[in-house]
């Protein structure tokens, strides 16, 4: 029911929304929960396990009951808390965990079966027969239990992530937070004030409080006006700080578009990482429910929530209301309701010595023994100092005291401390470095206390930042002592008393856990599922702990508490991984020839982050193999052009450049003449091969190193390490020029003819030579190197001319009967020639294994040399690189066995690394590592690949199948 003239909602902006298909009206500023209560909707969901009818318990993000599905196009977001979701025109919400309808739910039968469904029943009941668990029991249980459901569609909505930096982060905007922010802001510090709710102010906008003689709301608005006007303050509403991490880093979730429906370019949520020099935690406190029989009916709410709905939304949840509390402060609920003209049936105070002076009946030493009302509360029965009674009420407000919201102080291993006087945990001092808790989250519950601690916390932060604090008078506000007597459950009654509403855990379950010797709080939690629901026990953990302590005869501090971990509220993975779907998953690197290749219909294949053409199909070709065979023959017969720009290129300069290459390569580069290129092998310090490639000497003190595509970044890191760690004084510098140059292989018998037409005059370049050439006015580099075994060149040109040169080279090749070739043919060509890639140098092979041990110079030290000489790194027990030749396909990953041996692990003789069909030799070829393989050329070996169902015989050969003497290379 909505009250006239009350609340901070915008009555000028009515909105229409639906819940379970029915249409309702609310106002801008309403949450779904307040709007439903305004429409007298009390039943909003069914509980997790027993399918009990449930209503709205709280007015905040800790809500355990009122979880709904929000529908938006084909999207469906489950477990949205109605107390957080704001209403807007067109909002569509649906209750969850019920069938066929909220009012009549078939699985409500679970509630009748509850004697059989107590804690641990899954483990006890569904033990036998064993196979039934997976096939029958678990699917049934999963269907019956649970919360919302998913649309099973991709989440196409937009999310963002962002960074923010500040001097002081203030978490929460109640009296403590606002005071801290104001103090820090006036000192000139860069301040971020983060508030979870849509409106700043905390209890100042939810309670009937006065500050400096004016309504609390007015003080809040005045303070916000000042903060808004300051350039050094950022106010972030709808932003929940979810976690505290090392070095002043915080995670925070901002609801950007969830309160106004979908709009183009409007993200739903933004996940922030906030880095703060200092921080003030002013997160307030959460009121505790009380346990009594059937305390979970719709209409039973927290007292503070009743006040929030009254003052902030102008809503009362019923017509006849009672209050039960174990403290003085909650009585404001009854007084505020009566002042608003709402009938308060009675105040029940659990304390025997409490005051009875109120404008309504007060019962002391009161204990509720039962409630009634199937789909909503109709009456409560209780005993009290003078007897027992039943009251007809539709709403019961309850307060078991307050738990400081100290969760963030536990995120870095902090263990909270128990304070007997307030029967609550408070943060341990300095639990999070550079974070100061203030106000209710620190166990200080009066408004004046919050102002004072907020200011003190800001002063502490400012002092640490080296700033002087401004002289700021504290506002006048109530400073009532917090009077409470711990009370957790109704003793000596039958009936289930709920602790964890979200997971349907009762006091009985906790006692059963203790009885079955799950006495540690961590065991009890797992046995009962207490605190494991979306609210993570915010409402119930302390109550459950008290019951466990009682059942085990220990005190609460001895019982301990479970560990609070991030995130503080449920956080969508979509927000944390914003931007990471589809093309956003990984960066894409495109060659300068990319469009030219796609124009020719080349399918692209991923090589690391690069996209490279797989093959260039011709009309009439129906398989990749046809194209690959044609391209391979084309290159062996005339000329082919391929983009090889993905190879890493590192420009190395300095007086010690040659000396440095001698240290990182196994072979010697200081003897390389200017204008020549040398193949180099690089080891890791542990003696295994790191990478290979060619390096060209462009000048006395200038080299250009080439790395494999895969290891470009790794090699750069390695060079930086070797230089900075072992020879920082040497005069040598590196820079990656991979993306500065486009580089194309031109190979085949007609390669020289092609380049002659391009360059006009062909330089007289020996094999493994390099020369500067000019294309028009553009300086380019011509290398005579080959990865195909043919007479070949690579021509490098500044990147911006890459596409033009590629198109030109391909056109010239086609005139000569050649054309472009892709990765498939490139792979066949190099296997035919026995050239290795990272399929062979995969991190476990040595120079000896690949037959290059003679490349490790005996005359000098190099990285990896000493370790490569260790026992076991060479010799006949090693798997050595060989070629395999067969008449049918082999598979990379296949294992090798001596024919006649049993096929099992102990007789394994090696494995296949690369395979192809060779059109040049009309045979299936493979590169493989075979135990003592170099001594076994000519043997027949068995190739077994269980995955591809291959089991054939192959001939062991030298790894170089084609032009072993290199006649073509040097032609």
């Amino acid at each position: 029911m909505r009250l006239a003239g009350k609340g901070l909602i915008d009555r000028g902006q009515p909105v229409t929304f639906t819940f379970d298909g029915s249409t309702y009206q609310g106002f801008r500023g309403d949450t779904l929960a307040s709007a439903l209560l305004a429409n007298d909707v009390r039943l909003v969901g069914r509980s997790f396990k027993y399918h009990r009818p449930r209503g709205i318990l709280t007015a905040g993000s800790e809500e355990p009951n009122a979880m709904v599905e929000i529908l938006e196009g084909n999207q469906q977001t489950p477990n949205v808390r109605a107390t957080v979701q704001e209403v807007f025109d067109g909002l569509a919400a649906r209750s969850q965990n019920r069938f066929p309808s909220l009012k009549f739910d078939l699985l409500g039968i679970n509630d009748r079966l509850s004697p059989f469904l107590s804690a641990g029943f899954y483990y006890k009941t569904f033990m036998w027969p064993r196979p039934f668990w997976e096939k029958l029991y678990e699917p049934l249980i999963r269907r019956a239990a649970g919360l919302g459901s998913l649309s099973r569609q991709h989440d196409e909505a937009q999310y963002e992530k962002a960074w923010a930096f500040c001097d002081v982060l203030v978490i929460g905007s109640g009296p403590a937070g606002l005071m801290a922010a104001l103090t820090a802001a006036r000192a000139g510090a860069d301040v971020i004030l983060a508030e979870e709710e849509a409106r700043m102010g905390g209890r100042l906008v939810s309670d009937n409080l006065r500050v400096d003689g004016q309504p609390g709301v007015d003080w809040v608005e005045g303070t916000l006006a000042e903060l808004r006007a300051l350039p050094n303050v950022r106010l972030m509403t709808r932003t929940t700080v979810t976690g505290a991490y090392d070095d002043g880093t915080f995670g925070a979730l901002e609801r950007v578009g969830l309160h106004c429906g979908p709009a183009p370019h409007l993200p739903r949520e933004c996940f922030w990482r906030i880095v703060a020099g200092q921080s003030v935690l002013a997160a307030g406190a959460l009121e505790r429910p009380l346990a009594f029989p059937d305390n979970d009916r719709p209409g039973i709410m927290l007292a503070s929530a009743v006040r929030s709905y009254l003052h902030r939304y102008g809503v009362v949840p019923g017509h006849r209301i009672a209050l039960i509390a174990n403290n003085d402060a909650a009585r404001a609920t009854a007084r505020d309701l009566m002042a608003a003209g709402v009938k308060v049936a009675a105040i029940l105070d659990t304390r025997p010595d409490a005051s009875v002076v109120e404008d309504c009946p007060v019962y002391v030493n009161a204990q509720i023994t039962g409630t009634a009302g199937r789909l909503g509360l109709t009456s409560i029965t209780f005993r009290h100092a003078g007897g027992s009674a039943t009251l007809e009420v539709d709403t019961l407000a309850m307060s078991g005291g307050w738990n400081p919201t100290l969760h963030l102080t536990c995120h870095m291993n902090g263990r909270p401390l128990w304070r007997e006087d307030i029967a609550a945990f408070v943060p341990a001092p300095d639990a999070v470095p550079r974070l100061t808790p203030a106000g209710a989250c620190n166990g200080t519950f009066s408004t004046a206390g919050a102002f004072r601690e907020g200011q003190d916390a800001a002063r502490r932060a400012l002092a640490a930042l080296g700033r002087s604090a401004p002289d700021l008078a504290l506002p006048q506000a109530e400073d009532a002592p917090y009077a409470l007597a711990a009370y957790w459950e109704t003793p000596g009654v039958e009936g289930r008393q709920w602790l964890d509403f979200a997971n349907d855990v009762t006091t009985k379950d906790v006692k059963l856990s203790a009885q079955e010797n799950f006495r540690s709080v961590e065991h009890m939690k797992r046995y009962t599922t207490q605190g494991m629901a979306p609210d993570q026990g915010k409402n119930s953990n302390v109550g459950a702990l008290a019951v466990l302590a009682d059942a085990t005869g220990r005190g609460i501090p001895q019982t301990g508490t479970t560990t609070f971990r991030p995130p503080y509220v449920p956080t969508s993975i979509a927000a944390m991984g914003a931007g990471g779907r589809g093309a956003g998953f990984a960066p894409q690197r495109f060659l300068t020839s990319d469009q030219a290749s796609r124009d020719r219909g080349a399918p692209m294949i991923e090589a690391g982050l690069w996209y490279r053409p797989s093959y260039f199909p011709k009309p009439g070709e129906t398989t990749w193999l046809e194209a690959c065979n044609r391209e391979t023959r084309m290159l062996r017969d005339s000329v082919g052009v391929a983009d090889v720009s993905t190879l890493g290129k590192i420009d190395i300069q300095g007086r010690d450049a040659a000396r440095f290459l001698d240290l990182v390569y196994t072979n010697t580069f200081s003897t390389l003449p200017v204008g020549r290129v040398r193949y180099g092998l690089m080891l890791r310090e542990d003696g295994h091969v790191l990478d290979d490639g060619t390096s060209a000497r462009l000048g006395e003190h200038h080299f250009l190193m080439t790395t494999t595509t895969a290891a470009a970044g790794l090699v750069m890191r390695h060079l930086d390490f070797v230089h900075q760690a072992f020879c920082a004084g040497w005069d040598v510098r590196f820079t990656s020029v991979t993306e500065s140059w486009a580089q194309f292989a031109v190979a085949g018998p007609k390669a020289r003819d092609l380049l002659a037409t391009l360059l006009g005059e062909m330089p007289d370049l020996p094999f493994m030579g390099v020369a500067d050439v000019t294309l028009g006015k553009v300086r380019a580099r011509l290398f005579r190197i080959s990865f195909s075994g043919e007479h070949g060149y690579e021509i490098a040109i500044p990147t911006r001319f890459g596409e033009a040169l590629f198109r030109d080279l391909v056109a010239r090749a086609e005139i000569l009967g050649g054309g472009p070739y892709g990765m498939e043919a490139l792979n066949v060509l190099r296997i035919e020639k026995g050239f290795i890639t990272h399929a062979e140098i995969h991190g476990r092979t040595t120079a000896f294994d690949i037959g290059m041990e003679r490349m490790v110079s005996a005359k000098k030290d190099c990285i990896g040399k000493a370790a490569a000489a260790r026992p076991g790194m060479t010799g006949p027990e090693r798997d050595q690189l060989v070629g395999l030749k067969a008449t049918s396909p082999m598979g990379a990953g296949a294992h090798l066995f001596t024919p006649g041996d049993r096929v099992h692990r102990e007789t394994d003789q090696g494995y296949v690394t690369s395979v192809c069909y060779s059109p040049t030799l009309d045979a299936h070829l493979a590169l493989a590592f075979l135990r003592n393989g170099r001594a076994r050329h000519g043997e027949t070996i068995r190739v077994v690949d269980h995955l591809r169902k291959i089991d054939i015989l192959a001939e062991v050969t030298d790894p170089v199948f084609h032009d072993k003497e290199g006649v073509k290379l040097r032609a």
Partner: protein
Amino acid sequence: MRLTCPLCGARDRREFTYYGAEDYLNRPAPDAPPQAWDDYLHNRDNPAGVTRDLWYHDMGCSSWLLVTRNTVTHEILAVEAVADRKGGAA
């Protein structure tokens, strides 16, 4: 976690690549016995407390950094450039 790079200032750990313990800086002589190479390559302490390890600022200035930190409190005690360390450079 944040590291203060001597060249770039305080940066998030996402800018850095972790390598391993400081031991990698103490390369044995080429003719050192195999045990010395084994210690250098493989044998590491796993301290609960202060440790020194190597980080590479690959998303920044390419500096290799020697970071002194506490594995229990996560406190970063010192960050220095490997190239600038005393007695390190050849």
